[in-house]
């Protein structure tokens, strides 16, 4: 229960931060990405302000044996710079510029009931769904449906999906 309340509180703080920083305004995001045009450097200050806290706080927090409300820290285990990482970032950056929204500001903007946001968020969810189903289809093709290797690889994929970022 405490873990759920803390998630709600942190989400609220995060959403308020997105609002105050101006990142709920798609024009400010596109303005940052328009380096050679009318450039708005604000987004760099948002990243800088956020990282000023986490860059110092994270190492201090990791000195603890465990978090306050959970049995352990849940951190990504993959350290490979692989093709999905780079290709995924390329696709994300392209969509980010086209829509002026990344996932956080898109969710925060649902309250505007703006039509553009109301089609962006379901499209993003469809993108999650598409990625998961294509990946699982590829695993089945490679290992053979129902085989032990297929089951093991799918379980590993699903566990990773729940853990990281």
């Amino acid at each position, binding site marked *: 229960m405490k873990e759920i309340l803390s998630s709600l509180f942190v989400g609220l703080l995060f959403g308020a931060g997105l609002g105050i920083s101006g990142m709920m305004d798609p024009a400010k995001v596109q303005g940052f990405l328009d380096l050679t045009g009318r450039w708005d450097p604000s987004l760099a200050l948002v990243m800088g302000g956020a990282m000023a806290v986490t860059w110092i706080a994270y190492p201090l927090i990791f000195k603890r044996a465990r*978090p306050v409300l959970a049995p352990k820290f849940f951190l990504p285990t993959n350290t490979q710079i692989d093709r999905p990482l780079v290709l995924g970032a390329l696709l994300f950056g392209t969509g*980010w510029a086209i829509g002026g929204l990344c996932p956080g500001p898109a969710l925060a903007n649902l309250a505007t009931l703006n039509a553009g946001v109301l089609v962006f968020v379901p499209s993003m969810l469809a993108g999650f769904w598409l990625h998961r189903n294509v990946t699982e289809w590829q695993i089945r093709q490679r290992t053979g449906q129902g085989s032990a290797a297929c089951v093991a690889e799918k379980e590993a994929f699903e566990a990773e999906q729940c853990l990281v*970022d």
Partner: protein
Amino acid sequence: MVIENFTPLLSGSGGLLIGSAAALFMLWNGKIAGISGITKGIFAPCPTAQERFWRVAFVVGIMLGGLGTVLLAPDMTALSYSMSLPQMVLAGLLVGVGTAMGNGCTSGHGVCGLSRRSDRSLTSVLTFMGAGFVTMYVMTHLLNIARF
């Protein structure tokens, strides 16, 4: 280059709030405040209901923070924007597939990953920022698609 609409004080203080939220989430829940991953996990076949509840709570929190901004400072949101719907569908699909495939977005790889000194996150941030700069250049200077 012309600098326009720069809001250093508001953006810096909003950033401090975002960073504090991410730090508290690691201190309390031991988790990375990555919005794409948290949202994706609501629909992914994660094992327990508990796993789903905290994710929903986080997303509801963000939406409430957004609602507060819409009520107090509507000009700082997408409220009055008129956007091309096909453009936003394409953008949403790319952001969804891209963040799922690359395991993170501006928050998970950007704020949190860089602060964990993760090489994967540094690679991701340089790549998605680069793709964003190039896409914006192509849109505005070559295809004449107007910015918002």
